[in-house]
């Protein structure tokens, strides 16, 4: 009789819960017939991902995730859903003609990734890090030293988005 696997620790149980929640909400996003429900599921997924970041001790990322994704992007998506009245109360199918083939393709991709991830002996545990304020400070420092080009280009991108998107979305009157 093979030895029983060790009991999962509290951290592993919490991770399993968060992972299940995230995956279930992600399924909700792509399967929901009502688009607003899809948006709510997206918010749940984003919270789940933020919780995963916390488990990975990247708390600043977790809070940025909530601030930008939930606070801003999800709100924008909801606005767009309401502005375009694309609710689809089950009158027409939310899927296009190729959904069967696509579903098969997605399942195959997942299985391939699963096999790939499972076949490589990844690290089971990581060295402990001290995720204190100085780490966030170092993150800030990296933005303006090592990655300053990317940082400024991102600023430019945001500027272009601000100008372009406003021009696109305005009422022409």
């Amino acid at each position, binding site marked *: 009789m093979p030895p029983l696997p060790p009991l999962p620790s509290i951290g592993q149980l919490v991770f399993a819960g968060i992972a299940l929640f995230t995956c279930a909400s992600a399924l909700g996003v792509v399967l929901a017939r009502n688009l607003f429900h899809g948006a709510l599921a997206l918010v749940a997924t984003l919270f789940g991902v933020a919780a995963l970041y916390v488990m990975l001790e990247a708390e600043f990322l977790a809070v940025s995730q909530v601030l930008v994704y939930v606070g801003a992007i999800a709100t924008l998506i909801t606005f767009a859903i309401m502005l375009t009245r694309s609710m689809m109360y089950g009158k027409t199918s939310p899927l296009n003609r190729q959904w069967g083939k696509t579903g098969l393709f997605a399942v195959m991709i997942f299985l391939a990734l699963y096999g790939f991830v499972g076949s490589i002996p990844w690290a089971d545990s990581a060295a402990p890090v001290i995720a204190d*304020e100085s780490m966030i400070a170092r993150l*800030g420092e990296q933005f303006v030293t090592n990655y300053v080009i990317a940082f400024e280009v991102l600023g430019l991108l945001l500027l272009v988005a601000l100008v372009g998107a406003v021009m696109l979305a305005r*009422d022409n009157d």
Partner: protein
Amino acid sequence: MLSQYAFILIMAAIALVLPLAAIIMGHLLGPRRPDAVKNAVYESGVETIGDTWVQFRAQYYLIGLVFVVFDVEAIFLFPIAIAYKGLDMFAVFATIFFVLLLVIGLLYDWRKGALEWQ
């Protein structure tokens, strides 16, 4: 650090359960006599025609748009603000340049009237 978030998790659970319990209490204690008129949507006594859709203005979306960009800006500025004491002048100018880029965007939208509520 993770133990701090354990507190948040516990508190989140309690903060979700207590309001839920209060609402369930309300359901249990209150009377329950629904009828068609009571359950109708209240729109100042006018019969509701059609579904909820009103024509919304794209202005709401524009507000959200400008908000998104400034939110992202804030995300970058907070870690820089924490590291600020140790930064050299180059980094300071890079930060100010980043802020000014977005100010240009705001000014452009201002001139184009995207911030007006027409």
